């Protein structure tokens, strides 16, 4: 059927069932040497499961795996995949934070041992980092837990490309750019091209469609556990891709202009000075969605945390008038209670309201959870199911619903859409807009420029201070990008003059 010779990996008829959920329904996928392939689709379309099969952490119920022309179906596991040169950079970071950078390299390479292994490990990771992210500034001796998330992601990516006794032939990058700044993401994309020229294949799993179309050779769309189309990236447009994924194109967000007009007359909710000072203060009114933009790690998160800590404060440095709720995009670490049900995860913020004389009524708890499940279209048959049975996007819906249910005046969203598929994202932004129209004030930090379109105003951060304030009507990707590198509109005008 497909050309087996000359292909690196051939998956045929891969199927996998988790309980009642059919995650993969007979997927065929061929990967050629030196190819940059994109796999796109909704959360829950089966991308992650397919990749887990490919790297050997999940054994498929049916189907065959051939690598380098040899059938590997029997006894295919993590070790075998490793020996064959298949690596993966996971969406949820898979480094050990207590270990140093070079020690994490050792974890990946079983043969990196004996005298002088630390020296070799340091050299390996430094070389890989230098090649992929030339100005990374990462010390190979730093503990991974001390690095900001963007640098951790760089280390993880670099580690996947290090070679000791086994070759690298295929690297799967699961949402690699979601925690990287724009510049590092660009460097990574350019590197995959160079790697491809050397015969190393890459699989990109990404929700950033523009990135996918620009930087890959071929795009595979997955829907409902099947690979529904394979196309050359050059032949596709973003709209076509979105259509194939089975969601509506992300049109310009429906901002009701009437409601936006009088924001300035409304009550000021937040008025803070960013951590590194600067002239521009962050101002947000009731009913406004205010975006915090810029490269990752330039003080946006610190500003959000400052706002959170200053709830109810009237101090000049940080005035935050109203109750505050915080939603993090780092779900496993700061969001979900992994052992609890969906319902419990949702109602945890409301205990005071649900409690009667110190006791909770399970029926009432359930009714509230059920109400929010319907409002947010959380895809589960039963709110009593464990939270981890949901896909990442749906988990995030639960977390945002939790914050909404709490009825705070100000919602701080810390990169809340990390790893969330485009359809879910759109639903969530609609919810946010509706809530804002009802008077809630939102501060949204995002690393994805496209999401800023959903904001009324955007503040761009650079080195802990705000370099520019951009109104929604004047928002362009270009302008955000320039401000992210410290180039403000004024400076430019001065240059021109």
């Amino acid at each position: 059927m497909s050309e087996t010779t000359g292909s690196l990996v051939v998956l045929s008829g891969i199927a996998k069932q988790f309980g009642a959920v059919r995650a993969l329904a007979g997927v065929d996928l061929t990967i050629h040497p030196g190819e940059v392939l994109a796999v796109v689709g909704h959360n829950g379309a089966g991308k992650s499961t397919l990749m887990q099969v490919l790297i050997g952490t999940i054994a498929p119920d049916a189907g065959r795996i051939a690598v380098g022309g040899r059938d590997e179906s029997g006894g295919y596991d993590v070790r075998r995949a490793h020996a064959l040169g298949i690596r993966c950079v996971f969406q949820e970071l898979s480094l050990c934070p207590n270990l140093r950078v070079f020690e994490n390299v050792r974890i990946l390479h079983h043969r990196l041992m004996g005298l002088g292994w630390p020296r070799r490990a340091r050299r390996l990771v430094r070389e890989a980092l230098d090649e992929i992210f030339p100005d990374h500034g990462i010390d190979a001796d730093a503990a991974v837990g001390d690095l900001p998330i963007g640098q951790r992601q760089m280390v993880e990516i670099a580690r996947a490309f290090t070679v000791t006794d086994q070759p690298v032939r295929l690297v799967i990058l699961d949402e690699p750019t979601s925690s990287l700044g724009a510049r590092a993401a660009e460097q990574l994309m350019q590197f995959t091209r160079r790697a491809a020229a050397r015969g190393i294949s890459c699989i990109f799993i990404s929700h950033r469609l523009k990135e996918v179309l620009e930087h890959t050779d071929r795009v595979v769309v997955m829907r409902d556990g099947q690979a529904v189309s394979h196309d050359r990236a050059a032949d596709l447009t973003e709209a076509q891709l979105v259509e194939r994924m089975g969601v509506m194109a992300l049109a310009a967000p429906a901002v009701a202009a009437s409601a936006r007009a009088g924001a300035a007359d409304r009550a000021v909710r937040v008025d803070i000075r960013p951590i590194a000072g600067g002239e521009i203060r962050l101002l947000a009114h009731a009913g406004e969605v205010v975006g915090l933009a810029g490269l990752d790690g330039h003080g946006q998160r610190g500003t959000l945390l400052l706002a959170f800590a200053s709830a109810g404060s009237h101090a000049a440095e940080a005035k935050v008038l109203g109750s505050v709720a915080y939603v993090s995009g780092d779900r496993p670490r700061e969001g979900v209670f992994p052992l609890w049900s969906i319902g419990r995860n949702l109602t945890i913020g409301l205990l005071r309201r649900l409690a009667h004389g110190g006791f909770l009524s399970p029926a009432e708890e359930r009714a509230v959870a059920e109400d929010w499940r319907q409002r947010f279209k959380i895809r589960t048959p039963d709110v009593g199911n464990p939270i981890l049975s949901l896909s990442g996007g749906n988990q995030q819906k639960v977390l945002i619903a939790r914050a909404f249910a709490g009825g705070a005046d100000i919602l701080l969203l810390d990169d809340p859409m990390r790893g969330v598929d485009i359809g879910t994202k759109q639903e969530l932004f609609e919810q946010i807009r509706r809530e804002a129209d009802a008077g809630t004030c939102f501060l949204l930090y995002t690393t994805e420029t496209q999401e800023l379109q959903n904001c009324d105003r955007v503040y761009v951060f650079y080195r802990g201070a705000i370099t520019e304030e951009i109104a929604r009507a004047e928002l362009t990707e270009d302008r955000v990008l320039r401000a992210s590198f410290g180039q403000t509109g004024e400076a430019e005008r001065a240059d021109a003059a």
Partner: protein
Amino acid sequence: MQREVARATPPGGGAVRRRLSGRVLLPALALLVMVAVIFYLQPRAMSYTGMRLVLRYSLPLMFAAMAQLCIIAASDIDLGLGAYIGLVNSLSALLLAERPVLGVVSLVACVLAYAAMGAFIEARRLPSIVVTLGASFVWLGLALLVLPTPGGSSPAWLTTLVGLRPPYVPLPIVAGVLLAVVGHWLFMRSSYGVVLRGIGSTPQAVQRAGWSLLTARSVLYGLAGVFGLLAGLVLTGVNTTGDANFGAPYTLLSIAAVIVGGGEFFGGVVAPVGAVIGAFIMLLTGSLLSFMNVSTDWQLSVQGAILILVLGTRALQRRRA
């Protein structure tokens, strides 16, 4: 530019020493201050014999601390260590002198039981706190079974070994330095030590890289069994007799030593050198109190207070960082 910066740091040694000192520096300073105060209060302790006396019981404690460190490295905790040391103490006092072969066999069985406990915890995904607490009753029960009343004797070689008088530096200090070096090499320098610490923070990541968690946890518990065995043996040597209850204090003291020495309860953060220093600190609180003419009844409370103080300051530091 950045590359030059990276090269400017000495490859390996310097950086390792720098990071090591960060975690171990504070306990080391604390120990120095304690020793200085003891010498000031009781100048006679500042002699070979004086130090031998003061540090007599540091031998079992430092091994116990290293055993506990093996468990804490996996983000687990061992509440049965004291009882296990009591069991080894009883077995060795009863059997080693009279029936050495049976004695050795029973002690090897103890170590294997510890490794098996690690495998069991991993395979069934059980909380270590429950399993080790349950095991502590098993160890104590066995110890009472073999040695219902205190008794037995230490084999001659063991008494001699514990009574060694190396030139210039008393045995506990020599042993402490050696143990610290061995522990540091094992956990911080050896290539498998990285894997052992890795399972304490992100076991899934270690597993995805193709390592067996079952093996790793068994190795850690097995190592704990070995160090616990050494603790029990030197306890027999120091006391020259066996008692099922002798080991009891070592559970909490070993945990305190690891934590005071820079280790953390969770996340696979351990410092073997610090654990040995922590063992000396916990031990010297007793001497310090008696030299200050405070009743030794206060010793346990003071040791507990030190532990809370250390954890409290560390939490404070973290918040500031």
